[in-house]
């Protein structure tokens, strides 16, 4: 399946898929869609990527974060240092990566952690009610709208949890399977 055209096409399509999946997630409360469908759409994008490029490539592209850092100078103020670090990591990583003092640290996002985060979000959205002395999963809504995303509330948090979990699960399954 590793044809170049397909591979390229998929590489281009993936951001679109992901944006679409997030969109589906948030509009789900009012239109067809929701955490599941959104999650599945997002996951399928990754699945195609994995099928064309192999799991390692997928991990390297999407699930690996390279962080750079260097020790704080004694006379450097803490806030300035943090600013620098952020700049190094976010905007100018390529260029600054050649800095001799820089240390590279790689963080791989295990899909299991995505699963766990999803579960945690979903469960905790319900616990909010318990803390307030209400039943489990009692819904709390904010009384303002955020454009596109809609009204924030604990059920939306729940749906995000579902979304993350579905992505994590599908990713994990496909990684393991395609390594076979």
């Amino acid at each position, binding site marked *: 399946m590793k044809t170049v055209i397909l591979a390229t096409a998929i590489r281009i399509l993936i951001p679109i898929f992901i944006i679409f999946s997030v969109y589906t997630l948030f509009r789900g409360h*009012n*239109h*067809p869609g929701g955490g*599941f469908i959104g999650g599945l759409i997002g996951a399928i994008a990754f699945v195609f990527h994995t099928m064309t490029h192999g799991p390692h490539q997928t991990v390297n592209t999407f699930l690996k974060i390279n962080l750079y850092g260097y020790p704080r100078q004694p006379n450097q103020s803490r806030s300035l240092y943090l600013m620098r670090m952020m700049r190094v990591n976010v905007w100018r990583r390529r260029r600054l990566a050649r800095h001799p003092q820089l240390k590279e640290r790689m963080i791989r996002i295990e899909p299991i952690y995505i699963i766990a985060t999803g579960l945690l979000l979903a469960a905790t959205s319900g616990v909010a009610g318990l803390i307030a002395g209400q039943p489990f999963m009692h819904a709390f809504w904010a009384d303002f709208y955020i454009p596109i995303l809609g009204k924030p509330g604990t059920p939306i948090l729940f749906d995000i949890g579902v979304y993350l979990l579905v992505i994590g*699960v599908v990713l994990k*399954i496909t990684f393991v*399977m395609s390594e*076979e």
Partner: protein
Amino acid sequence: MELLLPFLIGILFSASLYLILHRHFFKLILGLILFGLATNLFLFVIGRLTRGGSAIISQSERVATEPFADPVPQALLLTAIVIGFGIQAFAIVLIKRVYQSFETTDLDDMSTTDQIEENH
């Protein structure tokens, strides 16, 4: 009232059971998936059907207006589909592992755990 659908579901059930009763485990897994489909359809159909109107409250309304499809079977169905997917995925992998271990596709070769050991 859709008169053909119950029969279609019946056919699906029959076909899936027949596949499940095969000795070849690839057929078994096909049968299981088909069985899941049939079950889902069954759940959907038996909760009564409403043609057209989906269970979405239109922007102009505050409550849903008839006719709209009963959302309950749909919600149940969604849950059931996803659960079914999880189990099916597991079953497919299981079949794969079974094949790797036993190097056979014949279910009848897998009857050792039920056998009674001799004690003498």
